[in-house]
């Protein structure tokens, strides 16, 4: 880990998070920002491997930074660090390309553990988020209505299976046991689900924009 973006407006929390990140990634260089504006400037200047973004900021939402990162630095892992645990707040961030989320009030050890797992490609997935993802893909526009240049994103049967089980309240390790899959395989499915959610959401947004006449081709 070379460059890590830390976007957080509360100084105490920011310094606390900074300590935590240092603990998990001792070699990383941490770029701090307290506002969306500053963070976007950093995004255009520095190449990041990891970004921790708060959602509610004085000059906007961290979702914009997540989206900007997803567009300009696809290999960067964006993680939402927030006080909101409800999917109304989390889902847009995941659609924008966030790779997972951390709840700020959790104990330092827990956050450190989750952060480490995410950086190793094991993002968390809650039942309510899983339900939203299922709903999202179910409501996707029909392929025949989709313009040629729009990628058609669909989940595989296995990914669907994992999503359905998560939605029913099974934990990822339990699903691994049920489906006789390794922990890493399950994590890969979840990663794929997040990625596809992002791609599909971007396609949907583009389609929506086109429908509204924002694009001229």
């Amino acid at each position, binding site marked *: 880990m070379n460059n890590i973006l830390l976007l957080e407006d509360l100084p105490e929390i920011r310094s606390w998070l900074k300590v935590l990140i240092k603990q998990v990634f001792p070699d990383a260089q941490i770029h701090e920002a307290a506002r969306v504006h500053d963070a976007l400037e950093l995004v255009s200047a520095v190449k990041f491997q990891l970004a921790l973004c708060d959602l*509610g900021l004085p000059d906007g939402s961290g979702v914009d930074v997540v989206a900007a990162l997803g567009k300009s630095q696809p290999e960067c892992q964006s993680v939402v660090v927030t*006080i*909101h645990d409800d999917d109304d707040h989390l889902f847009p961030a995941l659609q924008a390309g966030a790779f997972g989320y951390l709840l700020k*009030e959790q104990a330092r050890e827990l956050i450190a553990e989750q952060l480490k797992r995410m950086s190793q490609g094991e993002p968390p997935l809650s039942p309510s988020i899983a339900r939203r993802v299922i709903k999202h893909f179910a409501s996707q526009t029909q392929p025949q209505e989709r313009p040629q240049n729009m990628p058609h994103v669909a989940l595989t049967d296995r990914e669907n299976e994992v999503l359905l089980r998560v939605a029913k*309240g*099974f934990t990822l390790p339990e699903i691994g046991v049920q489906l006789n899959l390794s922990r890493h395989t399950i994590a890969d499915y979840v990663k794929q689900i997040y990625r596809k959610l992002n791609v599909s959401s971007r396609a949907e947004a583009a389609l929506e924009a086109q429908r509204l006449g924002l694009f001229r081709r």
Partner: protein
Amino acid sequence: MFNRLAFIAAAHAAAVLMWIAAMLPVAAHAADAPSVLVIDKALSVVTAPGIPASFTSTTLPVSLPDDWAETRPRFEGSVWYRAGFDRPPGTDAHDLMAVYIERACSNVEVYLNGQRIFSGGRMSEPVTRNCHYPQLVTLPGVLLQDQGNLIELQVQGHSLQRVASRQRAGGMSELKIGPQALLAPEHARRLFWNVTAVELASLVLAVLGCVMIGLGLMNRGETYLAHFGWLSLTWGLLSARLWWRDMPWDTGVMEFLFCSAFAPMVALTVLFLLSYADLRSRWIENALAAQWVLVPATLLLVGPGRLFFVASIWYPLFVLEVAAATVLHLVVTWRRKRQDFWPMAVLLVAIVGIVAYELVRQRGWADTLDLPLTQLAVPLLFVGIATRLLQVFARTLRAAEDGRETLEARVQQITAEIEQNFAQLAELRVEQVTEKERKRIAGDLHDDLGAKLLTIVHTSESERISTLAREALEEMRLSVRGLTGKPMRLADALADWRAETVLRLGQANIEADWRSPADETEQLLPARGFVQTTRILREAVSNIIKHSGASHCKVRCTISDRQFGLTVQDNGKGIPMELDGKLDRGHGMSSMKHRAKQMQGQCLVESGPGYGTVIRLTLPL
């Protein structure tokens, strides 16, 4: 429907005409008893009124009936008639005898053997108008001799030229002398038809007219009602000339007034016919008004001596006007396919026919029927029209009433709908405002309180304070969720609880065994119910992790139509009893019970040292 109505109306009119025909007095004299003496020849002499008659040089034999218009044209004044007679055969001195004079116009005085025995009224102007009154004069027994009786009659009359109708011209009918009992019925019959029936008709028309005028006043839109009302009233008043004997003014004045009154009556008739067909013409109205002035003007201009001449010019004109208006009315109603075309056609044609016949009579081209046909039949037809009008009016009124009721019902319905919509809108608005306010409060809580609590969580030196602040933050989040959340599918709630519980127990190395009904239920859980149950479950799991020392935890869910049950059982060391025999309050049991009670549910805790703990939560759905 249309044909049936027309047929009924026609049948009705036919029946009326037949009834009139049946009631006509028998004109032939053949019905007279042989003992009645008919005097159809007399000597006549012209005198000035009041001067005793001397039947000398100017004596003229005449046959009765003597129509002055024929025998003495333009004569104006008094004529004496004299005839001699013997006691009719078959009668004796004990019989009450009488002389019956069917018509003596305008007035008559009767003398028997030189004695005046009867006077019909004033013999000088204004002369009593007895033209329509038949006279039955009893002959005093003391004056009546078996043979050589002399009856003298002084008739005061007017020339045809000075009166408005032929019936008012001077004249004398034949005389009938016989027993009073034999003559009385004929007199009564004629009196009824000539006078009483006309009086009745006048009364009926006047009343009818007033009613229609009243209706017309109340319904200004239906002008034909008022027109017909005034027409009826005028006709009724004009009919008075037949039975009103003692007028306040000279015959010349009265005849002028009566004749002039025909103009407004014709105007009203035309207006009625037009307005009933929904027609209106300024031009016709002006012409009628002009006529109203023109008729009296021409009458005045030519003077009383040519009243009949001028009137007989106007009358055909009047009849033509009425006939034209009738035709116009019928053509329009026929074109509009109006339901009452046929009844109205029958009635109107009958009226025009009768009036035309009256015109012919006035000209002297037809035998006088000895009956005021116009004065009787026309009122009857008027009553027919009025019935028709009232029927139409009543139907319109009923239709309007029905329409009004329908409208009222509709208005009520719409009002109710509007009220309901308004209530719904208001409710929606309240909901929206509430929702917005909740979101604002939630946002504030997160941004302010949440941030501060978070700072405490991560900066506090004391682990206890961090834990408390973390718990407070969790509480706050749940509260916000309860504040803003929508009802949740029970199956989704169970999934969320399962994921959290299994994860937490797993992290604490406690084996979790969660079983819930496999089949998906569509039942909903209110946001508050979800939040409170989450708290209870979270508290229970925290207790197990912190205090029980259990290695295994069983969670069972049951869902029925009205109830939802959750049982959490561990194999730990149980909750220690307090001195009073109750379970330790420090384990949050009371707050769990309190939360359950808030949702009208209950939370039972069973525990004993060494037996583990069972928490049974039941909530209504």
